[in-house]
Every structure is written in C-alpha cells, then in structure tokens.
C-alpha cells in the first residue's frame, strides 16, 4: 500500500457507499478491495476522472448496463438512453472523486469526467503497477471503483 494508506483508500469506499445510500436509500455493499493486476476490472460503462495537482493518476467507476439503468430510474429519470447512461456513470465518478477532496483537500485537482462504453485502451493503470480495486454490489449488480493515484513529490 505504498503512497496510499488504508485510511485514504477508505475515503473512496465511503464515498461510493454514500453515493448510493444518499440517492437511493440503499447503500452499496462493499464486497472486497484488492490490488488489481495488469488487466483492470471493468463493466459495460465507465466514468473516468483524471487527477492532477498534489496527486496524479485516475479514479474510475465502472458498472453494468442494468445497474446504470436502475440507478437512472431510481433518480426518477425515465429516459435510459445510451447518452444518459454514459452521463450518469460519469457523474458517479465525478461525485466519488469530488467527495474525496474532503479528505485530500483542494490539492487534489479533478478533471471533468470521461464516459466510456465497453473496453477501451483508456482503461489501464496510470501510475500504479497494481491499482486498488473496490468491488461493490448494489441491487444485486456488481460494480467497481478503481483508485490509481499517487502523491506528487
């Protein structure tokens, strides 16, 4: 866990759990957190935030279509078109990363989200050989948050 402590990783765990709990009254259940290998976990839709400032790297949230569709419906958004699914996955990533600034401070500069469908070359480790993966479930659907950040010396 060099450069990122367990308590710092818990900041992201709390942020993703809180996101679902606050919006839908059903918090996400954290299944496991582990060091990912070269092939990073991902699902149908991925929202990716690039970090700069006192930290570098990226954070992404990835979820299957069914989870994103259900999330939109619970937000009372009946239009579950492709564009809205992508928008929503980007917003989840943005919110998790933004909330993390409560712990890391304003030195953690976050980009606007990039929303991705499917597997692309953009889903790869940015700074860590083995990024942290937080596997969660919500409404019987699995999703993942990948935290790939390091402080800038």
């Amino acid at each position, binding site marked *: 866990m060099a450069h990122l402590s367990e308590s710092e990783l818990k900041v992201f765990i709390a942020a993703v759990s*809180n*996101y679902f709990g*606050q*919006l839908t009254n059903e918090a996400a259940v954290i299944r496991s957190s582990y060091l990912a290998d070269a092939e990073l976990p991902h699902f149908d839709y991925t929202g990716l935030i690039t970090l700069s400032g006192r930290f570098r790297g990226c954070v992404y949230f990835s979820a299957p279509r069914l989870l994103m569709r259900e999330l*939109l419906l619970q*937000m*009372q*958004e009946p239009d579950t078109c492709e*564009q*809205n699914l992508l*928008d*929503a996955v*980007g*917003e989840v990533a*943005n*919110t*998790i*990363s*933004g*909330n*993390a*600034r*409560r*712990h*890391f*401070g*304003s030195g*953690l500069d*976050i*980009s*606007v989200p990039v929303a991705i469908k499917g597997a692309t070359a953009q889903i790869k480790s940015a700074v860590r050989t083995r990024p942290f993966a937080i596997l969660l479930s919500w409404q019987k659907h699995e999703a993942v948050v990948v935290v790939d950040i390091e402080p800038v010396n």
Partner: protein
Amino acid sequence: MKLLIVDDSNIIRSRIARIALHPRLPEITIVGLAKNGLEAIELSRRAPPDVVTMDLTMPEMDGIACIAALMAEKPQLNILVVSALGDKATAIAALKKGARGFLHKPFTDEQLVDALLEIQC
C-alpha cells in the same frame, strides 16, 4: 422565481428541474439549462434569473469563474453551488465570489428544496 440550472450533466440538470417543481417551493420558472459557465452567462443575459444552481467542475468555464462573472453583472443574484467537491477551501472560494449557499452532491430532493428555500431568505 426564475431559475437557471448550470451543470455539465444532463441527468443532474433534469433532476434539479424536476425537484424545482416541489410543492414546498414557490412557483419557479426555469429560464435556462446551461452545461458550462459560458452558456450560463449567455443564457442569463437573454433571460435574467433570480436564482442559479451552479456546478463547479465543468468544461469551457468552471463554476467559480462563472459565479464571479454573473455576480459582476447582477450582484443581487442568489447562487446555490451544487457540487461534489467536498473540501472547505472550495466552498469558501465559491462563497467569497458571491455564492449564497453550497450543497454537496450527492443530494436528496429534500436537501435541494431546503437549500433553495434557505438562499432566498
């Protein structure tokens, strides 16, 4: 009350527009939906709002710069920041530029209604 909603997420713009119809709020007319700061300034000149909900992390022009520009044109404007950025320094920076309130994402319908009522007091 005339409301301008500024957020780069279509989902969030739609959600805020829906919550703005909440019965606890006074009658609200949505005068614009902007996806960045530049659009917000343009829309506010075309149809001046009384209240603005403002995201901070946006492309083209971010929320802090937009708040400064809007307040320079209409100092009595009520701006509620609605942002995921959770650090105190960002909240203070927004309030210094003239925002009247700060609501953290994720938010519930009731939290947004309360925040909109508060900034109108």
